[in-house]
Every structure is written in structure tokens, then in C-alpha cells.
């Protein structure tokens, strides 16, 4: 029998894999936190979105600066000379977490139930968060990617 946490993990894995495959043509493979080695690229970029209804919570996407650059290049195909690399990376990460959150909520709640998302925000470094959070790790084309989930999502989606 699938537990709420296993069900949430499965839905997160699906939402992340589908979003990266569709938008960046990159394969995101879930890995155990035991398999995650500390990155030599210590600068982290993150994007976060609040889920406002039917439960309150947050989803945060974290990538090293190097990986964020690769994701941006994969999505845009080429660098916009007029835009700063950081701005493009933040924008790409924000749209990715927005899309992941939408896919996840659509999978977690009954079809006739509405959900509401906030506007994504972005930042550099380790994001401040709650103590009650779960991290999900992915291998993205040889790089480590992390999704941090905070909120009562495991109460959803067992129907």
C-alpha cells in the first residue's frame, strides 16, 4: 500500500520529470539523498512558489549556478545578449517551479477542486524556510537538483 509520503514523492517525481523534459529537454531522475554529494559549485540559485489553496505550503527549486546556466541554455537555446545571465536563470527557474507546482497540484487534488498558486520568487544562496520540510533530490544530466516541500501536501491525493 502506498503511504501519503510515498504518493507525494511519486507525484513530485512525475511533475519534475515531465516539466524538465517538456521545457528543457532534460531528463530529471530521482535519487536518494544518500547519493547526493556536496557540490563544488557552492552558489545556489532558487525559485519558490507558494501554494495558497486548498492547503498552504511552499515548493522551492534549488540548483547550483552552473546547473541553472545549463537549464537556461537548454530552454532558451541561445543567450540573449541584452539580458543578464542571472536574470535569465532566475526567470527560467521561476517558470519551472510555477509549472511544477501546477502539475503537482493537478495530480494531488480531485479534478473538481480548485487550487491557487502565488507568484514565484527567486534568490541566491540557501533559502530561508521552515523546519518542517522535505527535500527531494534529482540527477539532472549529471548535476544535482533539489525540490524542497513545506506544507501539508501529504494530506492530499490519496483518493
Amino acid at each position, binding site marked *: 500500500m502506498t503511504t501519503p509520503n510515498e504518493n507525494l514523492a511519486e507525484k513530485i517525481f512525475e511533475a519534475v520529470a*515531465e*516539466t524538465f523534459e*517538456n*521545457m528543457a529537454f532534460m531528463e530529471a531522475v530521482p535519487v536518494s539523498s544518500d547519493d547526493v554529494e556536496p557540490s563544488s559549485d557552492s552558489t545556489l540559485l532558487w525559485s519558490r512558489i507558494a501554494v495558497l489553496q486548498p492547503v498552504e505550503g511552499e515548493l522551492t527549486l534549488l540548483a547550483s549556478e552552473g546547473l541553472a546556466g545549463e537549464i537556461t541554455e537548454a*530552454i*532558451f537555446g541561445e543567450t540573449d545578449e541584452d*539580458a543578464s545571465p542571472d536574470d*535569465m536563470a532566475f*526567470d*527560467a527557474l*521561476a*517558470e*519551472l517551479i*510555477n*509549472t511544477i*507546482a*501546477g*502539475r503537482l*497540484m*493537478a495530480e494531488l*487534488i480531485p*479534478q*473538481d*477542486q*480548485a*487550487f*491557487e*498558486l*502565488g*507568484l*514565484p520568487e527567486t534568490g541566491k544562496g540557501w533559502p530561508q524556510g521552515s523546519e518542517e520540510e522535505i527535500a527531494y533530490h534529482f540527477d539532472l544530466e549529471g548535476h544535482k537538483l533539489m525540490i524542497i516541500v513545506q506544507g501539508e501536501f501529504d494530506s492530499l491525493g490519496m483518493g
Partner: protein
Amino acid sequence: MKRIVIADDSGTARMFIRRCLDIVGCAEAEYAEAANGKEVLEILKDRPADMVVTDLNMPEMNGLDLLKRIKASPRLNETPVLVITSAANPERVQELERWGAMAVLSKPISPATLAPVLAEFLDNEEDAD
């Protein structure tokens, strides 16, 4: 030549939508981009568009308010409005269609999901040619 306005507060999303539109047959279209509903109305003030593609969740003016403003305008109300959002569900889709949305698609879109809803729009373009 069709004129298409794409509204999303994310430049990544606008680029991605445009790329999908190009692939499904709108490569020759003239595009204008906006970061929110207010900017779309500014763009449409000078010249109507053949289609507006909009996100829902945007600052300043969201996609639903933009849709209502377009459909309430005698000058603009024939403009097809396609909504592409990460927050779609049947209830919201019904509401948007009640307000006159041509279709509502969930992110992430792809050329395969876009093509069927644009079939009529593209047929009209061929007829015009």
C-alpha cells in the same frame, strides 16, 4: 499576416509559447509580448490582435481580468483569447470559457497540445491567404 499578443510575466514562458506557436504554424505571425494584462490593453489600444495568448497568474492585471476587459470591449470582443496556465482545473476552465476564452491549456504546453486548439485559427489564416 496574423498578429499575436503573448502575455506572461515570465520571459521564459513567453519565449516557450512563441516557440510552440512557431512550430504549429504561426512562424510568419507578428508577435507582441506583454508582462501583464495592462500591457496587453496598451498594445491593443493602437491596433487589435488576431489572437491573445495569456497566462492567468500575473501581477498588475491577471489573465481573467484581461479576458473580461477584452470581451467587454465592442472593439476587441471578437479577439480569440487562449489561456495557458499552471493553475487550470475543470472549475476554472468552465469559468474562463464562460467569460469567452477560446481554450484553456495547462502548462507545460507542447506543440502537440497547442495544435488542436489552434486548428480553426490556423484554418482561418489559410482562408485569408
